[in-house]
């Protein structure tokens, strides 16, 4: 029997996950020889769930196919349910170091389950950084931190900015290194919820969206794939130069209001996953950011208008001078 299986070429390895034949991707997942480099963290994933691998390829398409590195920060697995139940009601389980930190999801939602799992691991275990609950994007190496409570449209604005040429660091984690004062990318697919899915689908032709998962714990969810430009720069930290507190309001005209430092401080610090845990370290790190970056509240209804305003604000911010 001649092998019909595609062979991985020796020299001209496909560089991105989207270029890899599905069978080869499945093989890599089943042997856990696939590692995801998110920038701040490297995650090894083992899985034999076909549905997971298929969905994964769509939203991680631009990520590099890399041989398993010698060191990974997290060792995870996405697997099916156990026992008789796995036939009656197929499930997906997320494991880190053999431990299942939360209840299984329906099997079809294996990808959102994995995304949630990686966020959880990161928020639990990466206390070497101040983890701001914020979107982070950059132009070159100058970054804007966008903090907002859930539902304010932070993910939508982050997604739209990436599609208009900003380099996305993360839609959820502002990974602030307390020793360098720089932001690390933690570049993951953007989980868009409910109305935001169609907003982003209609917003740009270059938007690559994964499957729509109906009725997850957070409503209807679809993931926006990070673009290659952001993926390729995921090992490049950026210096914060602007603090932004965006809020979307239907029909609002663009309104930008400068915030005093103490208010910006409270909004950034108390919107963090581990501010209290780091104690003085996080106080000093956030204080440095607030001292270096002008802070604004931004109310908007039209994405493009908001994005152009942000572009101008970054260009005008003088944080480099202050930091230097």
């Amino acid at each position, binding site marked *: 029997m001649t092998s019909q299986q595609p062979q991985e070429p020796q020299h001209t390895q496909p560089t991105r996950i989207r270029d890899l034949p599905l069978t080869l991707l499945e093989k890599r997942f089943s042997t856990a020889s696939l590692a995801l480099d998110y920038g701040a963290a490297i995650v090894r994933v083992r899985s034999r769930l076909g549905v997971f691998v298929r969905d994964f390829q769509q939203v991680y398409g631009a990520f590099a196919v890399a041989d398993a590195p*010698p060191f990974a920060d997290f060792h995870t697995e996405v697997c099916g349910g156990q026992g008789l139940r796995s036939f009656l009601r197929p499930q997906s389980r997320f494991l880190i170091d053999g431990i299942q930190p939360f209840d299984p999801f329906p099997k079809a939602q294996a990808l959102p389950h994995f995304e949630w799992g990686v966020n959880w691991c990161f928020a639990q275990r990466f206390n070497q950084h101040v983890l701001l609950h914020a979107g982070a994007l950059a132009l070159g190496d100058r970054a804007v931190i966008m903090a907002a409570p859930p539902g304010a449209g932070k993910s939508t604005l982050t997604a739209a900015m990436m599609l208009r040429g900003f380099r996305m660091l993360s839609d959820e984690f502002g990974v602030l290194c307390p020793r360098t004062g720089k932001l690390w990318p933690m570049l993951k697919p953007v989980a868009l919820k409910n109305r935001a899915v169609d907003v982003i689908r209609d917003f740009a032709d270059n938007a690559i969206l994964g499957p729509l998962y109906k009725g997850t714990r957070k409503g209807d969810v679809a993931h926006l794939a990070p673009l290659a430009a952001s993926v390729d720069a995921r090992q490049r930290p950026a210096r914060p130069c602007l603090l932004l507190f965006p809020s979307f309001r239907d029909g609002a005209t663009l309104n930008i209001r400068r915030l005093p430092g103490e208010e910006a401080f409270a909004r950034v610090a108390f919107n963090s996953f581990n501010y209290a845990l780091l*104690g003085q370290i996080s106080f000093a790190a956030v204080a440095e950011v607030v001292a270096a970056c002008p802070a604004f509240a931004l109310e908007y209804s039209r994405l493009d208008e908001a994005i152009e305003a942000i572009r101008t604000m970054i260009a005008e911010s003088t944080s480099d001078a202050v930091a230097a």
Partner: protein
Amino acid sequence: MIALGPADPCVHTLLALLADPHHVLSIGLPEWDKTIRLARQARLLGVLAQRIQPHDELRSAVPECVLGHLRSATVYSAHRGHLLRMELTALAKALPPELPVVVLKGAAYMLQKLDLARGRLPSDVDLMVAHSDLDPAEAALRNAGWEFEEIDAYTERYYRQWSHELPPLRVPGHPLEVDLHHTITPVTGRLKPDTTLLFADLQALPGERFLVLHPLDQILHAVVHLFQDSDLQAHLRDLVDIDGLLRAHVHSHDDWQALAARAVQHRVERPLWYALRYCRAWLTTPVPEDLPLATPPAAVIRLFDWVFPRCTLPRIPDQPAGISRRTAARLGSLRHQWLRLPPGLLVRQIAHKSMRAWRARITLRQQSE
């Protein structure tokens, strides 16, 4: 070295690092990958970090991605230590000043500023009062807002009659639990240290409201805790505590003789013998050869040498545990039950637990139908 059983080779790396942090100079990235996972599983990552980080020449030998995990563990253990300090402050306010209260284990190590407290992850607060002070101590805590979690009548009775502590207490919203003890081992246990002796030699700490055990009793408490009052599962960190206490409190020939004599007085020679055996073998604790402790029978040592590493050492969890580890875990658990309860009570406890499990299964079946 005592054979480590089916342990991953990186368990050797972890033990070598715990024994001497200079071992970082000979570790490559693939070994770090597993060693960090093993240390985290053993709840020893913070301890490891604290032994490496203060030395510039060692820290600079650690790859940046590994250092991140060490820094994170240091931050986390400092945070837990901070919570512990806050809980102790609240407890000191709540307890009547005339009541002698002893802090045990992690809280004591912290107040004594022992090296072994650095990077250690305290899980809860262990306090001890004389049996006759139990009621006033309990009343004072409950007045000040500490509450028992909901437990059934049997569990309540189990704690109050047969255990050495009250059910866990907690102020709603406080992250740490308080265990209030009246001695250091279950009152039904086969090995019973001499409580009068424990209380006779309590030590005051300058500037602190709380007392601590005599240094030798502190060691023996840790020993009994691991070798009698546990199922041996994944308790490498308890052995690391014992190693740290020995290095902190026992230096001279006379100290070692006094430790052996104290173990005889408390009738815990056998557990001490095992503790010293594994401390010396795995953590290179400087234990002298000629201590006046009775050696257990050779066959028992062989059995223990088979069970102990399989139960106690962490493992890479990518594959399910093999048959030898599962057998060892079963043996460790049986041994624990046997040491903790006399045969009559043991039968009763097993009967009660199986009855409860059986009832739960019936209820579950009824619900699903």
